[in-house]
């Protein structure tokens, strides 16, 4: 009982001490303390509730952001997917100079085509302006990369007339005469007449090789020779330019106006 009383007194003294101490703290500090306490608690409370859920899962960022970035739709299907249906073209292309050129590099993004082939058909660039993006001569391009001079290389013809883009071999120009007639050979090689053999127009006797001046090759002498291909009614490929033999340059031979090794076209 006595002990209890002592304890009671002691605790009373202690609280008294504490009260005295609390009383000593200036009033200003107390108000500020409460104010800051409220503000800081509020800050942590808000922070607790507003921080995004997945923030910090892997690092200092929202892990959910990765999912939303990965859910972006694809536009380019990839050559592998094209190959599954167009295996014939793939087989051709894989052996050609264009083996590294991806299908969609020229045909454009085609994921829609893989989803519904009839709904969306990827365009094919057929115009002359497209291939020069890679093949027009530019001094900055690496040496050895095939390039052409756009103004002199078969001016108005679309590239795909002579070159198959899936197997772009340069059209073979016959070269048996080129040892001596190199200039004509080179001129002709970039002309519309490139695929023609020299002997298509010139009959060269075997002896021309030994004694060129003694045994001259022949030249076409009549308008009808050119007309075999260029006449309106001639049985030749459709894209060859045609003329009316009856009223085109009557009285002249073709080569008087057109240079056959580099026939200009209007």
């Amino acid at each position, binding site marked *: 009982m006595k002990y209890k009383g002592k304890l009671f007194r002691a605790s009373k003294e202690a609280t008294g001490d504490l009260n005295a101490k609390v009383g000593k703290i*200036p009033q*200003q500090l107390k*108000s*500020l303390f409460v104010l800051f306490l409220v503000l800081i608690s509020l800050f942590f409370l808000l*922070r607790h509730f507003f*921080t995004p859920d997945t923030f*910090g899962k892997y690092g200092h960022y929202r892990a959910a952001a990765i999912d939303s970035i990965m859910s972006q739709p694809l536009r380019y299907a990839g050559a592998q997917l094209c190959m599954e249906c167009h295996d014939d073209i793939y087989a051709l292309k894989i052996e050609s100079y264009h083996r590294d050129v991806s299908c969609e590099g020229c045909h454009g993004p085609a994921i829609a085509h893989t989803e519904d082939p009839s709904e969306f058909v990827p365009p094919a660039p057929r115009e002359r302006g497209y291939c020069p993006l890679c093949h027009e001569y530019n001094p900055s391009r690496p040496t050895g990369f095939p390039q052409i001079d756009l103004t002199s290389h078969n001016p108005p013809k679309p590239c795909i007339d002579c070159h198959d883009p899936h197997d772009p071999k340069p059209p073979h120009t016959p070269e048996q005469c080129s040892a001596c007639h190199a200039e004509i050979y080179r001129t002709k090689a970039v002309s519309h007449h490139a695929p023609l053999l020299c002997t298509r127009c010139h009959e060269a006797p075997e002896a021309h090789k030994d004694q060129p001046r003694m045994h001259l090759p022949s030249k076409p002498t009549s308008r009808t020779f050119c007309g075999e291909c260029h006449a309106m009614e001639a049985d030749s490929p459709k894209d060859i330019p045609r003329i009316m033999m009856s009223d085109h340059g009557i009285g002249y031979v073709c080569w008087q106006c057109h240079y056959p090794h580099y026939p200009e076209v209007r």
Partner: protein
Amino acid sequence: MEDHFEELLLNLKQVVGFIFPNEIELHWGLLIVVYPYVTGLVAGAFILASLERIFNIEELKPTYRLSLITALAFLFVAPLPLLSHLGHPELSFEIFLTPHLQSAMAMFGFVYIWYLMVVLLLEIWFDYRKDLVVWSRNETGLKKYMYKILTLGATDLSDRALRFDKKAGKFITIIGIPSAFILHGYVGFIFGSVKANPWWSSVLMPIVFLFSAIVSGIAIMILIYGFTTLIRWKKFQMGCLDKLGSYLMYAIILDLSLELLDFIHRLYESEESIKIISQMVSSRLFLSLVIIQLILGSILPLVGLVLVRVRPLPDELRRLIYFGSAILVQVGIFSTRWNVVVGGQLFSKSFRGLTIYKVQVLGIEGLLMSIGLLLLPFVILWALIKIIPPWPEAETVVPSAAAERKE
């Protein structure tokens, strides 16, 4: 949007040399020029007040409270240019939610809150508490309640409480000075730590920012003190103005020598970027750097202030020189901020070309907005002066409780 693209297309035509294609859009414009300028004024005005308090400089008494609430008025405005420049201001609270501790900018929110809540507001509160209590007793109506709330319930006017106010104020001033240094040095660090940009990347950047802040802070106090004295029809205390003038002079000397050190260092080291930087300084930045910042903003005021000290001049003329210098210094320091912020983006990070920046008149990043943001602190200052007048004669005399008790 179309207008924006057209404008970029026009800018593209004025590019000199080569810039990376993405660099045609200049990202930190006029608003970001305003931001360090305003923060500089805060830090400068506060440091001035602190000098008075710590070293007990009698002459500066009239500007002590005025400096404090000027700093507060500008501090309220400081984050606004930043906020309005953000692409998504509505998300700005994220800087408190998930501050990225490695980022120099992430700390802005905390440095700002620390400076506002713990330094400025507290110092002002302790300084004004007894006045607030007295006003809350004497005023009537709404004002009475406003003052009551502002006292935060601490209405003790005993000697002991007043002594504590003084002590606490002094203590806060002492932690306030490094805080002011941090606030503005930190703004400098935001730029100085960008290693990709040789115009910004410099250890001196925070220090140069700090001293130019002090320069601009002293100058704005000369102007505000002058203006408020004039419109209140009071007499100028020339001692105060002379003191402010001499501080301004020393601050300009320090600031100028630091900037020259930075300049000479760059020139002497002459790194990869020196070619494009000298090209920029002699063309796009010539007017704002050499003419305005250096000649008009530093050398001319310095000459005036030195003149005042070496020759006895009549009061009128001295005042004129002080005010003239202060105005020039303001223009000069604003130009300094411009040269740092915009200059750092005028040259390509390929160091091969210069782009261009045109200030727009309208729009969020425009001239009108910036002028508005620069005027706003004065409106706030006016309101603050109405609520807590900083004039010495407005200070209340406390009916000393201790004296009463003794009787």
